[in-house]
């Protein structure tokens, strides 16, 4: 099977994730979209590793998973905190860090 | 004997002292002062020991050389060494630090509504600054020099920003940003220098000895020179990069101002002499006319602005700018007399500025801290000793013959005249304006009827006189017998002259008698 299909799939996933981040207001959904983008990247890494015949991409994919897991921990904690204080998970509302 | 790392030890003593002073309990401010003073005296003693071992007639101008790899990947070394010029400037720093500490004994109070810094902090900063001053004059590696050069900003920033007067935040920030800007250009030029040296030798280096005589191509030299020179011109300061100085000096404690103008600014002129000239001879030659023009403008500009100032500290800052015009002029005329004269002038200016700022500081302390000239009148009557020292400082500043400032000023002017007759002639006119503004200050503040609130101010006390006497004695001694300085400086100057390939102009009419045997080719 042609590995380039995996790359195309990965690009599609990445695009969906990007659109999700840009268009959705709910923090949880945005977060899921980010995860989608990360995993799209993972897929691309693995596909390229396969195409190039070495393990570098696969190793990086593991790194990404670890980082993503850590990010989920921190990110979800922040979202929960925001939800507790504001009774809302919309990402458009917390804008205290503007100019 | 030379294997003993004298310079490293010399630099470490005040650093260790600074840390110890900073760690003392806050409740013992007196102990901090005494300890700081003792350490500065130890440093002075060490400098004397080093100076005595320094061989003025040795074939190799750099002595007490230390050399260790630091960051081998970038050719950075920890290398120290002094030639005559570095030695006398280190000696100047070592003399001025204990004087500053002694004179500023009661200048700093415990934190209150007006000041935020602690007593021990001030003295710890002075000692830290001393380490950096020694390092900057002793470094023979451009990178190491740069590190010291930039690190010096930190203690001075805090000394102005935490212990200064009303305008301290503004002045400290202006000083820091202006200096950092200069340093940034120098950093870029330094990296460029590394790359250029790598192109020529294959192995990039920051080592001064390797960089001198490297024959970098003239176009590159012109760019790199500007980077270095810009940093030094701000530090010196050369017109028109001077406006940080009056603000910084005006907002500083007298002691801070002494170290700032007396030593720190010398780093600028020292840098021109040590780095700009030997490493970029072609560029120095190319830019010399422009720099000379700026220096001459600076001489007159500073003097005229000083003539119209009402704030004593700002006035002295502008007068220093005028003096720095002379020093820079002497360096860039490329004659032995001019360069030697500039070095002597650096010493002389350090001493006379110290005397001026300290006496002015003693005066201000006695009159609600006012630094406005118009607030003073007739001080000579209640405080004749103070007025006497002030007059002496003023005379030293106007380069009265018999004082060391005259040796420096005359040699600079003579060296200039040798090379550029008209420039020398015009610059000489500066001595009239110098006399005018210096004597104006004395006349307004010290003579005439006694001003209100000044009737019963106290004359100088023993501590204050003790701080000033060494300056006075040195100024007179070196004025009548400058040989100790000239003996060590001249060989270093000759080296610079050889490196930049300049020769002294010969007299137009040969001497018929036998006295020309001392003349060099």
């Amino acid at each position: 099977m042609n590995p380039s299909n995996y790359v195309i799939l990965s690009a599609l996933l990445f695009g969906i994730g990007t659109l999700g981040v840009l268009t959705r207001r709910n923090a949880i959904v945005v977060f899921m979209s980010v995860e989608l983008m990360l995993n799209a990247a993972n897929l691309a890494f693995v596909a390229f590793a396969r195409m190039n015949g070495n393990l570098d991409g696969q190793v990086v994919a593991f790194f990404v998973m670890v980082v993503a897991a850590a990010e989920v921990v921190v990110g979800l904690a922040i979202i929960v905190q925001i939800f507790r204080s504001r009774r809302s998970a919309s990402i458009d509302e917390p804008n205290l860090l503007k100019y | 004997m030379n294997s003993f790392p004298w310079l490293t030890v010399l630099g470490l003593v005040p650093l260790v002292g600074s840390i110890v002073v900073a760690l003392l309990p806050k409740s013992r401010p007196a102990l901090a002062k005494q300890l700081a003073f003792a350490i500065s005296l130890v440093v002075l003693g060490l400098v004397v020991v080093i100076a005595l071992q320094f061989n003025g007639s040795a074939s190799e101008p750099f002595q007490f050389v230390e050399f260790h790899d630091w960051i081998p990947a970038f050719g950075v070394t920890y290398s120290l060494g002094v030639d005559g010029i570095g030695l006398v400037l280190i000696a100047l720093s070592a003399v001025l630090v204990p004087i500053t500490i002694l004179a500023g004994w009661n200048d700093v109070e415990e934190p209150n509504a007006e000041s935020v810094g602690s007593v021990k902090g001030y003295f710890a900063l002075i000692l830290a600054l001393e380490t950096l001053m020694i390092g900057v004059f002793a470094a023979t590696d451009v990178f190491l020099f740069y590190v010291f050069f930039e690190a010096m900003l930190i203690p001075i920033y805090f000394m102005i920003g935490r212990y200064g007067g009303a305008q301290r935040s503004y002045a400290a920030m202006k000083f820091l940003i202006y200096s950092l800007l200069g340093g940034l250009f120098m950093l870029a030029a330094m990296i460029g220098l590394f790359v250029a040296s790598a192109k020529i030798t294959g192995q990039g280096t920051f080592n001064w000895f390797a960089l001198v005589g490297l024959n970098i191509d003239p176009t590159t030299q012109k760019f790199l020179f500007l980077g270095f020179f810009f940093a030094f011109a701000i530090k010196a300061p050369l017109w028109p990069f001077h406006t940080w100085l009056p603000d910084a000096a005006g907002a500083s404690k007298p002691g801070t101002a002494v170290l700032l103008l007396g030593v720190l600014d010398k780093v600028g002129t020292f840098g021109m002499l040590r780095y700009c000239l030997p490493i970029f001879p072609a560029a120095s030659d190319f830019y010399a006319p422009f720099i000379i023009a700026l220096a001459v403008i600076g001489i007159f500009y500073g003097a005229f602005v000083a003539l119209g100032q009402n704030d004593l500290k700002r006035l002295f800052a502008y007068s220093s700018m005028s003096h720095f015009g002379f020093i820079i002029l002497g360096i860039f005329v490329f004659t032995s007399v001019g360069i030697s004269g500039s070095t002597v002038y650096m010493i002389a200016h350090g001493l006379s500025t110290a005397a001026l700022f300290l006496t002015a500081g003693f005066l201000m302390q006695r009159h609600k801290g006012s630094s406005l000239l118009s607030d003073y009148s007739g001080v000579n009557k209640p405080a004749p000793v103070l007025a006497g020292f002030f007059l002496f400082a003023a005379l030293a500043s106007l380069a009265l013959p018999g004082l060391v400032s005259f040796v420096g000023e005359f040699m600079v002017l003579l060296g200039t005249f040798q090379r550029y007759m008209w420039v020398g002639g015009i610059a000489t006119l500066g001595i009239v304006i110098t006399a005018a503004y210096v004597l104006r200050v004395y006349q307004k503040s010290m003579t005439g009827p006694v001003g209100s609130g000044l009737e019963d101010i106290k004359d100088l006390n023993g501590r204050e006189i003790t701080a000033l006497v060494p300056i006075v004695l040195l100024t007179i001694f070196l004025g009548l017998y400058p040989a100790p300085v000239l003996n060590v400086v001249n060989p270093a100057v000759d080296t610079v002259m050889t490196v930049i390939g300049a020769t002294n102009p010969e007299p137009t009419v040969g001497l018929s008698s036998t006295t020309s045997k001392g003349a060099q080719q």
Partner: protein
Amino acid sequence: MQEVMPATGVFSLLWLLIALPLVGSAILLLGGRKLNKWGAYLGVFTVLIDAVIAIAMLIAMMGNSAEQRTFSQNQFSWMFAGNFKVDMAFQIDQLSMVFVLLITIVGTLIHIYSLGYMSHDPDKRKFFGFLNLFIAAMLLLILANNYLLLYVGWEGVGLASYLLISFWQIKPTAAAAGKKAFIINRVGDVGLGLAIMVMFVTFGSVGFQEVFGSAGQASEGTLTAIGLLLLLAACGKSAQFPLQAWLLDAMEGPTPVSALIHAATMVTAGVYLIARSHAIFDIATTAATAVVIVGVITMFMGAVIGSAKDDIKKSLAGSTMSQIGYMVLAAGLGPIGYVFAIFHLLTHGVFKAGLFLGAGSVMHGMNDNVNMRRYGALRTAMYVTYATFIIGTLSIMGIPPFSGFWSKDSIIHAAFESNTLVGVLTIIAAAITGFYMTRMAAMTFYGKARWEDDVHPHESPKVMTIPLIILAIGSTFLGMGLLFWGNIETWLEPVVGIQKEEIAIPEALLMAITLVLVLAGAAYGWIQYARREVPTIAPRGSWLTRAARQDLYGDVINDTLVVQPSFWVSRFLVWFDGSWIDGLVNGSAAFFGGLSGRLRHYQTGFIRSYALSMVGGAVLVVLALVLVRLS
């Protein structure tokens, strides 16, 4: 050419001549109040010892043959770098010798006089410290063997003069006068400094022997430049036109200072400088002519000012300017005149010191009032002062057989030898001298008493009158002594050279004409100020009188041409510095501050817009990569 001998025997004490008063000055100034009691005596003592050493040197010098009277003493290398080298070295020859004698002997007398004059001053110790400093600097000026060391003495006497003029610095006028003297002198110093530089660039040395030895090889243009610069220096120090304005104000200082510094010694340093540099002026004839012109102008300016002033010290100061004008013009005449310039300098040093001290003695008895319109009929009240003052007056007028006659007559004669016009001018100036000195003597000692109410004139104490008597004896006999017994011409000839020319008029006739004119001037003065009533309020006077009372507008000219423009420049630059240079610096800081103030508005806090810009950026990067790959 003179032979230079090593300084052995009594000449090995050359350095001590300078060191003694210098140490004395240091002790007096640094010693503190403990020395108030006997400090003044120490000041007198050091100068007295100097005078004794100087006399011993004179005797030793006379023992040598004329060619072996130059002694040099090298102490150590002073400044050196590259091909530049100046030694701390002293030299004495016949010319220096007569100056050393004048300085130390007149100096001693004035020191002694000051013991009385300053006896009530709380700062007496300081006064003697400054006087000693002056003696040291003046001797250094005279004894230096190179121009740079001379320069040290040159500014040193300027400093002492500054300190002593503004000695009573609680008076704003005194402080201002001192500052003015120093700054105008500095203008002259620029000339000397530049002359030294030209010498070094030309000859490679600044030593007297070397410069004079090779002066012949330099181009005339160079020598003219050196000569004119030296003339500028001399104008500053000797209060010659156009740098004359400081001398009249300098009378703010205590009277002994006016006598010692501003009459007898320091102000004549310019004449010394020109005579010393005769090797240059001999060749640079243009510069020498300029010297004569300056001398003539000042001779008349001083005489006119001296005739109009009512302040006795200022009138004497005008006279000093005028007499130094005589010396300067004589020095400008070349070998015809050098000797007589020095001759007049010596006699003038003695009789003018006597006149000033006499004026001081009058002031001492008149509650320090200097206004001659408030004097009158003092000859009975202070007889010694009167008698010595009259001797001084006769001497300066040039009445035989007093000292001034011999020296002034020699100058007039030399002027005729060189140029009849200059000769005639010197005679006219002599007539004016007759007028203003008679006026001064008449207003002070004759006529009716016009004293203020609480004044009780009295003779000064012995310590003041004895120096007056000694100076009066000098004013009488010094001229004859130097001319006939001392042979001043042959004495100075080896140093400055001498040359005689024939003149058209017989010598006796010339003398007679001069004398008649002087007496005519004196008679006019007598009629105006002794026979007629002198009003206590000055009448308006002619335009010339009014101009002379304003110092011939010297101050006004300096003020409009130099002082005011300087302050304008200063004010402009202060403004320029604050608004433009610092404005540029602070402006660039403000620019970046403003820029960041605008840019931060792009930080909206709207997270999805950040995300969009990130995506946009990423797309741009990818596009760029693709474009690079494709091209």
